[in-house]
């Protein structure tokens, strides 16, 4: 080993505490990066392979009823590769042992095993055989939730008649990777399941023999999706199509895509924070080291070491930080990535979904870290390089102090001499002090960023499930029913109140922009389903106008008071001019609400209802469920609280895990910044502190000098941290927003308090570690040595 490398090793040993702090902060950045990118790529790769092998469709459409001959017309649309028509219906299931009814989605599969689209992947059992009554394949999520296996039987209410379905196989489908009922915010595998049934059995049950009510198709390479969708809509409108849509609007795909974009987001902002902090720490440590070694550098130069050799010597320190941070970070990142993949595998059902750590991800992480580290080192090493050897031989001039702004305005009069020393030190290096404050603040910001998700999700839950949806149960009738249906529903056992709604597919148009949505007709002053405005107040349902999601209005470019056109995609397809009379602040999907009578008028109907919202006497709910399961006209039943509970426990567990990881990461930042600041303050002032001790100051008094500085920086960092956290959370909210999902920015005081607490505790603990050095200060040695 060369003498210079020996120096490197020994200097590093001296710096080990600070080196460890830097390596840990770096490792956090690398870990988050590796975790999110490798998980992203594992998921994205598994998904792409699955979609490709099982021929996941590109375009989908649901309609009322179309003869099979239409399939041929659609296949002849330019750009269409392959078309598959089928029957898709939702039915009520009576799961043994479960009081409330569940919803089953029955999807037809061709009788003859043909190479179709959205192919099912059998996990157990066999495919259904045409001609054998009641055979179904069940989706794995539902099978796992109920412990179903081939041979089990499930009663289902198929078009008003109870029938026993026999499970013959358990399968997965690219269409239901994330098996969630459309419109639901979260999966509920106990109460929603997908089943596949032979076309020859399902179609006749719904009077769809020789016809279909659902379409899936793939596109040829180069086909323009909106163009094809337009043509399909032209062809299928008369068959009651609610509009074709691409993968980006397909429920399962859309939700996974949302996860993928969150992973992408996670791969950018948090690693950038950690790497910026580590760059700052490296800068501080290297500047200090090079400042201390200016005479050594001068000697090396005097003896003919080139500037490059000297720069390389110091860059080696940095390479060691990078190596340490990368190795640790890659291991932790891979570990977390594996955990995250396992977590996704609980929700996303893929035939093959393995965690893979790709070499290029590791390489990318190392490169990013190296860039951050070198950026952090650049100014410090430059100082070493440009240091004139002759000048460096003389010791560094004493630090320059003068009376600054804060003192000129008289603040110092409020301070003790010790306070003045601290204030002068901090204000002498405003950039470094400022960056230190930002560094500590970022630990708080990371916590706020990590925890606000929980606040937001809880807020959305509260609003959605307790303030908008004030009902206990919602039911949907098989066909838009008569007033009698509502009357019957209102008189079911335990029903306290029933409010009807009439849902209809529509196209809203404003200027050149248009959108296919569902319009829900509500009673004038709804009590059980109350759309809320931005300030959380119920939006009045206008007599003639329409109320819609603020996001939908934004997409259409329409403002309150303006008139837009509404085309109902049912019946005679009437088109009406309607005034936008209010906006609702909702978090998922695009919705529009009108007076139920206005909807009926447009449809030229009198008293039709699509379904009803019910409030239920909890004591009699079992009785109600029992009855509902036996009401043929009821197509599906959603029980709000039951669904809520299942998800809350899963979510709480995941959020808890996330919170723990965040806590560790934020503490590492706080520790890294505070420890380095403390150590450097100590090193720079050891003579001064020793002098104070010699002239009679106690250890405690001297410690106050050092810890006071850290305390002052931390106190300054608290509000900055809250502010940065708020800023980052706002960024995240914008980044996460999609057409179908919006997150309000909600940060509870408790989240800020927790962030502040962690910052304070991390500072206090680190401060005490540094304080031990004051106790061990060797007065004589310190005063003897130069500089």
């Amino acid at each position: 080993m060369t003498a210079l490398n020996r120096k490197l090793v020994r200097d590093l040993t001296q710096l080990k505490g600070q080196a460890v702090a830097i390596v840990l902060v770096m490792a956090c950045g690398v870990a988050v990066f590796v975790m999110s990118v490798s998980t992203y790529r594992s998921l994205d790769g598994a998904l792409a392979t699955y979609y490709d092998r099982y021929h996941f469709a590109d375009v989908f459409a649901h309609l009322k009823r179309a003869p099979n001959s239409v399939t041929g017309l659609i296949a002849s649309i330019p750009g269409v590769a392959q078309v598959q028509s089928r029957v898709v219906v939702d039915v009520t299931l009576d799961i043994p042992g479960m009081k409330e009814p569940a919803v089953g989605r029955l999807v037809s599969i061709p009788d003859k095993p043909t190479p179709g689209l959205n192919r099912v992947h059998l996990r157990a059992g066999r495919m259904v055989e045409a001609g054998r009554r009641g055979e179904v394949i069940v989706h794995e999520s539902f099978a796992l939730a109920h412990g179903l296996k081939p041979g089990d039987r499930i009663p289902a209410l198929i078009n008003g008649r109870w029938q026993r379905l026999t499970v013959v196989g358990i399968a997965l489908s690219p269409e239901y990777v994330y098996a969630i009922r459309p419109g639901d915010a979260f999966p509920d595998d106990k109460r929603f399941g997908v089943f596949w049934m032979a076309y020859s059995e399902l179609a006749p049950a719904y009077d769809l023999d020789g016809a279909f009510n659902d379409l899936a198709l793939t596109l040829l390479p180069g086909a323009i999706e909106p163009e094809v969708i337009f043509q399909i809509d032209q062809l299928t409108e008369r068959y009651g199509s609610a509009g074709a849509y691409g993968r980006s609007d397909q429920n399962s795909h859309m939700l996974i895509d949302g996860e993928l974009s969150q992973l992408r987001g996670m791969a950018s902002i948090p690693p950038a924070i950690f790497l910026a902090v580590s760059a700052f720490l490296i800068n501080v440590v290297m500047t200090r080291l090079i400042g201390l070694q200016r005479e050594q550098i001068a000697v090396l130069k005097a003896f003919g070491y080139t500037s490059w050799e000297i720069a390389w010597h110091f860059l080696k320190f940095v390479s060691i930080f990078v190596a340490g941070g990368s190795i640790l970070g890659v291991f932790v990142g891979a570990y977390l990535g594996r955990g995250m993949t396992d977590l996704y595998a609980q929700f996303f059902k893929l035939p093959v979904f393995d965690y893979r750590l790709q070499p290029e991800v590791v390489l990318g992480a190392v490169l990013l870290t190296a860039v951050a580290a070198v950026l952090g080192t650049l100014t410090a090493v430059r100082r070493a390089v440009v240091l004139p050897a002759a000048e460096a031989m003389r010791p560094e001039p004493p630090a320059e102090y003068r009376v600054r702004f804060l003192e000129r305005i008289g603040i110092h009069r409020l301070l003790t001499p010790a306070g003045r020393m601290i204030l002068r030190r901090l204000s002498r290096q405003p950039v470094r002090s400022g960056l230190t404050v930002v560094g500590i603040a970022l630990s708080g910001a990371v916590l706020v960023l990590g925890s606000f998700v929980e606040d937001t999700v809880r807020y959305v839950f509260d609003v959605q499930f307790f303030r908008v949806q004030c009902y206990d149960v919602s039911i949907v009738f098989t066909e838009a029913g008569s007033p009698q249906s509502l009357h019957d529903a209102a008189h079911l056992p335990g029903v306290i109140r029933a409010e009807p709604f009439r849902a209809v597919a529509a196209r809203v148009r404003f200027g050149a922009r248009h959108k296919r949505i569902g319009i829900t007709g509500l009673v004038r002053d709804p009590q059980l389903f109350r759309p809320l405005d931005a300030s959380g107040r119920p939006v009045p349902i206008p007599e003639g106008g329409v109320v819609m999601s603020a996001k939908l209005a934004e997409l259409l470019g329409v403002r309150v008071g303006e008139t837009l056109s509404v085309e109902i995609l049912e019946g005679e397809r009437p088109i009406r001019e309607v005034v936008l009379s209010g906006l609702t602040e909702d978090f998922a999907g695009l919705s529009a609400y009108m007076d139920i009578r206005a909807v009926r008028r447009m449809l030229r109907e009198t008293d039709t209802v699509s379904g009803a919202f019910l409030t239920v006497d909890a004591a009699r709910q079992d009785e109600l469920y029992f009855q509902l399961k036996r009401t043929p006209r009821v197509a599906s039943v959603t029980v709000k609280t039951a669904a809520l509970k299942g998800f809350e426990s899963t979510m709480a567990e995941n959020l808890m895990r996330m919170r723990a990881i965040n806590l560790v990461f934020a503490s590492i930042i706080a520790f890294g910044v505070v420890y380095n600041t403390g150590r450097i303050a100590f090193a720079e002032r050891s003579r001064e502190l020793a002098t104070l001790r010699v002239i009679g100051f106690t250890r405690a008094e001297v410690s106050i000098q050092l810890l006071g500085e850290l305390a002052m920086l931390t106190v300054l960092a608290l509000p900055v941290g809250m502010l940065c956290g708020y800023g980052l959370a706002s960024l995240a909210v914008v980044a996460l927003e999609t057409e179908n999902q919006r997150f309000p920015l909600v940060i509870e005081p408790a989240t800020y308090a927790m962030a502040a607490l962690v910052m304070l505790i991390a500072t206090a603990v680190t401060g005490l570690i540094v304080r031990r050095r004051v106790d061990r200060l060797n007065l004589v040695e310190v005063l003897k040595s130069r500089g």
Partner: protein
Amino acid sequence: MATHHDQSKTETVAPAFFARGLTKVYRMGEVEVHALRGIDLDLYPGEFFVLLGPSGSGKSTLLNILGGLDVPTAGTVQYLDHDLTSAGEAALTRYRREHVGFVFQFYNLIPSLTARENVSLVTEIARDPMSPEDALRLVGLGERMDHFPAQLSGGEQQRVAIARAVAKRPDVLLCDEPTGALDLKTGVVVLEALSRVNRELKTITAVITHNVSIADMADRVISIADGRVTAERRNPHKKTPQELNW
């Protein structure tokens, strides 16, 4: 340099260093500091040369220019065929690496390296160095090679510095107040080491000092004050370090 092996100190031999009209002006904020005001100087192969002057006289500046650590504001300086006046950073670095050994008042050892390692620091980048062990034995430190600077006395540290400076077999050894931080007894030991290097390796040895008595061990003495040469003398009979009166 191998071509200057003869011990002649007469002007008939071509000088190794040739400086004319050396001027150095520093700018310190608003003030211009004239460190050197037109110095002419020749240094001959193998000579032991003392530059005398009070602090602030400009002697360190002169030494830095001779050693390639600094360049003059005006005037010329040449070492053999190297023009040090117009040399760039890279050329000066190469010049220092190949020809110059430095000894500083405060030793400037690397505290994290042992005596042997401090010397290796230089031998590792030299073309034809002696071994660090030989260099340390030359200054009488054969027994303390694996000690860190903090474990050595001031005199010992300065001898390590001398070993480090001579280990590369430099053509010129430049010493800036080498005994400035030492007491008489240790100062003598250090000067003996320098004298031995000059004698045995024929290295041009330039010592700058404000200590007049050291001048007696030189072949030639130049006094400078306020950036100008004020006197030059030649010692017909050099004293040994032990004979010096401090």
